[in-house]
C-alpha cells in the first residue's frame, strides 16, 4: 500500500523545488493518451501517466524510469493538457543526477562530452575529400560521426560517409564549405541533465561560431540542428542538411529513376523542429516514392535509444519494431532514410546484430548519403 503522510519522502531537489516540478505536471487529468502511445510502454511497464500521478503524491521517479524515458516527446504531442513530460524528466535528471552505469557503451560518449567541455579547444579533426574553404561564410559541421566510427565498432556502417556525402553535395552545388571544428553540440549532456557539461560546450561553440564570421551553419544530425537552432542563442542561420539540399536541389541533377523508400521522422527533426516536409521533398526529388508508415510525422515512434542512455532489451524491441514497420512498407530488403545521425547509429547497430535476433536485410541510410548517391552532378 502506498502511504501518504507528513513523513513522505521529500523529493531530493537540487535546483528545482518539488512543487515547481509538480506544477509542470499539474494539468494532467489521467486520460492516458501519453501512455497509450508511449513506445516504451509497448515493451515495458514504463508508464508516464502513473509516474505523473505518483509524483503529485510525493513519490519520486525511480531511477529505472528516469533513465528509461526516451524523451521522444510523443507524449507531449498527444497530451490534451500540454503536460511537458520530457522536460519534466530532463529536469528531474538534472536534479538527481544519473549514475554512470546507466549509459550504454561504457559511458564513453558521455565522458567524451565532458572531457571536450574541459578542453581548451575542440579536438575534433576531420579528414574529408573535396573542396573546403576556411574563409567561406557557409560552414559545415559533421558532428560526432568519426567518434562513432572509432568507438561503436560497427563493421558495415560507415559514419564518416555522412560527412563526406554532405561535402560532396555542397561541392556539387558550387560551394566549398568552411569545415568548422566545433565541440560536440552538447545535446546529450543537456538531455541527461548534466547542464554543467552542456554549458561548457555551448559557451565554447557559441564563441567559436561568432569569431569565425560565418553566416550559415549546415549540419547533418537532427540533434545538432535542434540544439544549435533551438537551445543555443546564435546569430547565424542553422540548416539541417535536408534544408540545404532543398534550396539547391535543382543543381544536383537527379537521375529521376523512381524507387521505393521508407522515411523515419527523427524526433529532434520532426516533433521538436516541426520539419516534416523538407526531408520528404528532398527524397522525392531524388526519385523516391515514399512509402509512409501508418504512424508518421508527428506520430512517429522513436528509434529506441536517446542520449546513449540504457541500450537494453526494451530498446532493442523498439528498434526491431521500427525495422518491422520498414519491412512492411518497403520489403525486407528495402531502404529506410533517416535525417539523424543517432537514428542512423542505433538502427544500423541493431541491424548488424543479425541472426538469431532477426532476419532483416534492410538498409538504413542518412538523407545526405542518398542524395549524394542519386545525384549525377559532378563535384
Amino acid at each position: 500500500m502506498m502511504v501518504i503522510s507528513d513523513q513522505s519522502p521529500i523529493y531530493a531537489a537540487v535546483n528545482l523545488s518539488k512543487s515547481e516540478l509538480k506544477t509542470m505536471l499539474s494539468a494532467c487529468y489521467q486520460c492516458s493518451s501519453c501512455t497509450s502511445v508511449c513506445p516504451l510502454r509497448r515493451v515495458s511497464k514504463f508508464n508516464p501517466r502513473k509516474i505523473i500521478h505518483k509524483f503529485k503524491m510525493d513519490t519520486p521517479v525511480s531511477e529505472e524510469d528516469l533513465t528509461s524515458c526516451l524523451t521522444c516527446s510523443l507524449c507531449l504531442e498527444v497530451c490534451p493538457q500540454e503536460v511537458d513530460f520530457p522536460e519534466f524528466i530532463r529536469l528531474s535528471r538534472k536534479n538527481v543526477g544519473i549514475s554512470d552505469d546507466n549509459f550504454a557503451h561504457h559511458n564513453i560518449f558521455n565522458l567524451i562530452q565532458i572531457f571536450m567541455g574541459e578542453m581548451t579547444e575542440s579536438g575534433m579533426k576531420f579528414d574529408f575529400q573535396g573542396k573546403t574553404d576556411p574563409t567561406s561564410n557557409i560552414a559545415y559541421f559533421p558532428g560526432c560521426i568519426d567518434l562513432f566510427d572509432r568507438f561503436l565498432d560497427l563493421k558495415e556502417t560507415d559514419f564518416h560517409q555522412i560527412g563526406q556525402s554532405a561535402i560532396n553535395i555542397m561541392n556539387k552545388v558550387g560551394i566549398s564549405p568552411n569545415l568548422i571544428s566545433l565541440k560536440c553540440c552538447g545535446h546529450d549532456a543537456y538531455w541527461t541533465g548534466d547542464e554543467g557539461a552542456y554549458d561548457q560546450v555551448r559557451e565554447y561553440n557559441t564563441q567559436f561560431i561568432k569569431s569565425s564570421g560565418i553566416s550559415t551553419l549546415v549540419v547533418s544530425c537532427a540533434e545538432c540542428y535542434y540544439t544549435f537552432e533551438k537551445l543555443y542563442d546564435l546569430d547565424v542561420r542553422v540548416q539541417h542538411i535536408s534544408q540545404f539540399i532543398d534550396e539547391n536541389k535543382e543543381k544536383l541533377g537527379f537521375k529521376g529513376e523512381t524507387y521505393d523508400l521508407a522515411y523515419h521522422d527523427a524526433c529532434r527533426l520532426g516533433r521538436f523542429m516541426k520539419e516534416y516536409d523538407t526531408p520528404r521533398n528532398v527524397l522525392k526529388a531524388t526519385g523516391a516514392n515514399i512509402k509512409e508508415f501508418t504512424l508518421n510525422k508527428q506520430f512517429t515512434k522513436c528509434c529506441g535509444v536517446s542520449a546513449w542512455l540504457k541500450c537494453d532489451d526494451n530498446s532493442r524491441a523498439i528498434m526491431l519494431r521500427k525495422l518491422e514497420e520498414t519491412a512492411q512498407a518497403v520489403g525486407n530488403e528495402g531502404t529506410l532514410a533517416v535525417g539523424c545521425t543517432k537514428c542512423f547509429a542505433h538502427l544500423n547497430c541493431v541491424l548488424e546484430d543479425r541472426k538469431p535476433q532477426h532476419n532483416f536485410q534492410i538498409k538504413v541510410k542518412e538523407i545526405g548519403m542518398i542524395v549524394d548517391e542519386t545525384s549525377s552532378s559532378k563535384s
Partner: protein
Amino acid sequence: MTEAKKIGSVAIIGGGIAGIQSSLDLADQGFKVYLLESNPSIGGRMVQLDKTFPTLDCAMCILGPKLVDTERHPNIELLSYCDPVDLQGSEGNFTLKYIKKARYVDEELCTGCGICEEKCPVWVEDDFNEGLTTKDKKGREKAGRKNISIPFPQAVPKVAYLQPDTCRYFQEGKCRICEKKCDAGAIDYTQKDEECSINVGAVITTTGFDPFDAKEIDRLHFGDYPNVFTTLQFERLLNASGPTEGEVVRRSDGKHPKKIAFLQCIGSRDLSINKEYCSAACCMYAIKEAIMAKEHDPDVEAYIFYMDIRAFGKGFEEFYKRAINEFDIKFINSRAYEIEENPETHNLLLKYEQFMDSPSIVTAEMDMVILSTGMDPSSQTEFLQERLHLELDHNGFVKTDPIKPIETSVPGVYVCGVASGPKDIPDTVAQASGAAGKAAILLKDVRGSEIEEKKYPRAINVDPTDESRIGVFVCHCGHNIASVVDVKKVTEYAKTFPNVKFSDDPMYACAADTQLLIKEKIKEHNLNRIIVASCTPRTHEPLFRSTLKEAGLNEFLFELTNLREHISWVHPHEKGQATEKAKDMLRGAIARTCRLEPLLKEKIPIEQKAVVVGGGVAGMTCALDIARGGYPVYLIEKEDQLGGELLKIPRLHNELQGEMIVEDLVKQVNEEENITLYTGANLESLSGAVGNFTGVVNSQEIKFGAAVLATGAEPFTPEGYYQYGVDSRVMTQREFEQQFNETDPKTVVMIQCVGSREDEAPRTYCSRICCTTAVKNSIRIKERNPDANVFILYKDIRTYGDLEELYLKSRQLGTVYIGYNDDNKPIVHSDGSVEVFDITLGELLQITSPDLILLSTPLVPKPNEELSQLFKVPIGGDKFFLEAHVKLRPIDFATDGVFLAGTAQYPKFTHESIYQASGAAARVMALLAPGYLLSEGAISVVKEEMCRGCGRCEEICPYKAIELHEKEIKLETKTIKTVKAFVNPGVCKGCGLCVVICPVSAIIISHFQNETIEAQVDAILLKSEPTGGENEQPSVEAP
C-alpha cells in the same frame, strides 16, 4: 435628446430550438416576432437528431409540432434564409438590417410539392445529412441532395431553394428543368439577394453552435478512413429518414458494424487545440447513440472511451446506469489515442491503456468509430461581436454575467441557448423562455402595438338539422397525389353524392388562390361544410379552418382527408387500388362531415395575477420578472426571511457572495410595488384551476391565474456515512464553507458522491453541483495556503461547460484527484486515516491523519408532498418536482397554469436557477397576457343526467381538467344529493381518455362523437350509405 419610441416587436436571430421557444413565448404575449434564420429552414441542430436523451423521444416528433406552431403563429414572421448584417439604435428601438438571400424560388408561390427536386439532374453534398452518402447493393452512391431541394421533409417553411454555384443553368446557361416542371410557376432565376430592414424593440441572439470540425485533428483520419463518423453523422445513419433509411452501415462496404467505438472529448477539454471547455452534452448523446445502435442491432457491441462521464442532468445518471446494466454498453476509462486502419478490411485498430484488470496496452479492432465532437461557437458569433457589438468570452461564446445570465453587454439584446456556452436542450429551452421574458418586460408598455388581431365576419348560423351542403376540393399536390391517385375520378365521384353541391380538383389546395376559390364557392353554392382531400391536418388544418372563418363558416364544419400520407405516399405502385381507397376515404369523410356541428371556442376570463411559492433566488427572480412584466405577484416564503439556501453559501464558484446576491434581490423585491410578500407563511388551501385559482395565505384569500413552485432544495445530511457525526474532522462541504475562515487545514481529503449516485432510490441521481463545489473549495484552500495538501476522491469529475476551467485551475494549484469506483469505496478509519483504492494507479492508498475530511453531499428537495397535492402536480422518483417533459417543457407542469423553477426541479447552479426562473416568469406572462383562456372547442362534455359521480374520469385526466362537484338534483317528487363530474373548458384538451373510461357513457367528446365516427367507419366499409342529417332521406349509393 428625447428617448426613442419603444417598438413592440422583437427580432430573434437564430431559428433553432432556442429561437423557436423564444418566438412562441413572445408571440403568445402579443409581441410581433421576426425570426431570422440563416438556413433555408428553421429547426437548427435538433432536427438532425434521431432521438433525444434520456427519454429516447424521437427528436422530430417532439420538435415538429413546435415548427408548425411557429410557422402558423399569426404574430411570428419567419425570415428564413436571411442573414443579419447590421444593428443600429438602442434598447427599445433598434433597426436591424438583413440580407434576404435569393432562393431563386418564390416563397409565396412554392407549395413544397418537391417536383423540382425530383427532376433536377444535379446532385450536391447533403449538409442536412452531414454530407453522408452510402452505397447501395450495386455499389452506386445513394442519397446526397439535389441542387434545388427542400432541405428536409419537415422543413419550415416548406419551400425549395436553389444554389446557383452548382446549378447547370447558372453555370452553363442551359437546363431550366425545374422551371419547366414547376406547375406553381415558383422558379425565379432573376431573384437577387435583397437588403431589408426591420424596426424592433429588442433582439434575442440564439445563434447556437457549429459542431467541431474533426478534420482539424490529423490523428483521427476523419474524412480519410471511411468508417470513422461523427456523432451527428451517426444520428443521420440511425434516423429512418436519413440517407440509409435508418440502417446503420459502414461506408466502406455497406455492412452492419458489430463493434462500434465512441471517442469522447473530440474538440473539447483539449488545451492543445485551444478548447479548454467541456461541451456538456457529448457524454449523454454518445450514450444515447450507443443504446440506439444496440436497439437497431442487439448483436452490436458498443464501447465508449471516456475520461469522465458527465451525466449531470435530470435522469442522466439513471440513463447512464441503464446503458451499463440493461444495454451492456462498455465504458472504458481511457483516451484511445491511436487509430490505425486495416487497409483491407477498413476495420479500425484502437490502442488504449487498460487501467484495471491486467493493466496493459490493448489493441481493439472496431468496425466503426464515432467521434463525439464538441460544440464550437457558431460562425455567426463573430458577426454578433462586430456588428451587434456584443462582448464575447475567451472561448468565443456571448459573454454574460452570472447573475444576469440572459443579458448581453448591449442593453436590449439578450442571449440564450448554446450561443452563451455549451448546454443541452432542456437548459436551452428554459433559457429561451427567459430571454423572451426579458424582452417582454422591456417592451411591456407597447405590447400588442405591432400586431393586428385578425377580424372574421360573423359566422353564418348552421343548424344541425339544416341540409348539409358540402364543397369537396381534391388536391393534386403537384404530382405528389395526382401521380398515384386519379384525382379527376375522385372529384367526379364526390359529385355523385346528393349532399355534395360542388367539387373541384385544385393543383394545390393550400395555395393562396385556392383559398379564394373556396371562399367564392362557399358563397356561390351556399355551402355549409367543406372537405379538403389533400394532406395531413397537423400542418394544414389550421389554414383551411381560417379560410372557413373568413368565409363566415364555423371552423369546425371542416374535414381534412389525407390522400397523401395515407394513400399516394404509401401505395405508389398500386395506382388503381389507390384511387379506390381514396374514394372510400372520401365517402367516409362525407358521412362524417354531414354530422359535424358548429362549436365555439369559449373565451374564459382569467385572474391576471400570479403566485410564486418559495422566496429563494429562483422565487425572487421569478416574482420580480412577473411583477416587472406588469402583473401582480404574491410571493410566499415559508421562512421568516427571504433568501433560501443561497444565504448559507458564503462564496460561489464564480467568487460571488451568496449573501450579496440575496441582499440585492431582497431590496428589489421590497421596492417592487407589484409584489405582495408573505414571509413565514404557507399556501394553506387551494381550489380552482388554470386562470382562476383561489388560495388562502395567512388566512387571507388570494385569487390568481398562474403559479410557480420554487421551493428549492437543501444539502443531504450524511448520517452514517464515513464517520460523519462521529469524528469531528468529518464534515460536509457546506459546513466547511461556513467555518472556512476559522480553519487552516494542512491536509484535506474530500470524498465525492456521498449519498448521491446510489443504487437505491431516491438518491440515484447526480447532484450536478458537488464536483464544482469541491473544486472551488480546493482552490480556496490552496490559494490561502499553497502548502496544504488537498486530495479529492471522485468517481467522475463533472465540471461541464466552462466549469472545466476551474477544474484545471484546481489541478494547477496542486490538488490531487484520486479516482475510485463503487466496488471499492473509500474507507474512513476510526483514527481518521483514509483508505482508497486508486483506480488509475491500481493501488491501495492510505492518507494518514488528514485534518479534515469533507463529504460532498447532494442537494435533496424540500418536502413537496403538500404542494404536490394542492396543485395536483407530480413528484418524480428522485422526490424533485416532475416537469411536463424533461426535454422541451422543462419549466412547465403537465397541469396547466403551474410552473417550476430553481432547485425544486433538480440541483443546479445559481445562474441556472436565475435563467430558469426568468423562463418560468415568461411562461406565466404568456398565459396571463391575453386576459382570457380560449377553450379548445372540441372538448369533453358531461351528460349530467347520466353521470353517477364515480370519479374515474377525474383520475385518468392527464390535464386535471375534471373535478367532481356535489350537486342537488330536483326530481319530480324529491331532491337528491349527487356528485357530478365537471369539465373545466379552459383546461380540457379534448384527448378523449375520459370518454373511454366512463363506465356509463356519460361523457362525449364534441367533434368526435361516437355516432360521427361510426357513420364514417360504416361508410368506408360501405355498411351504410353516406347520408345527411337525421331528417334527410338516404341518398342513392354511389356507382
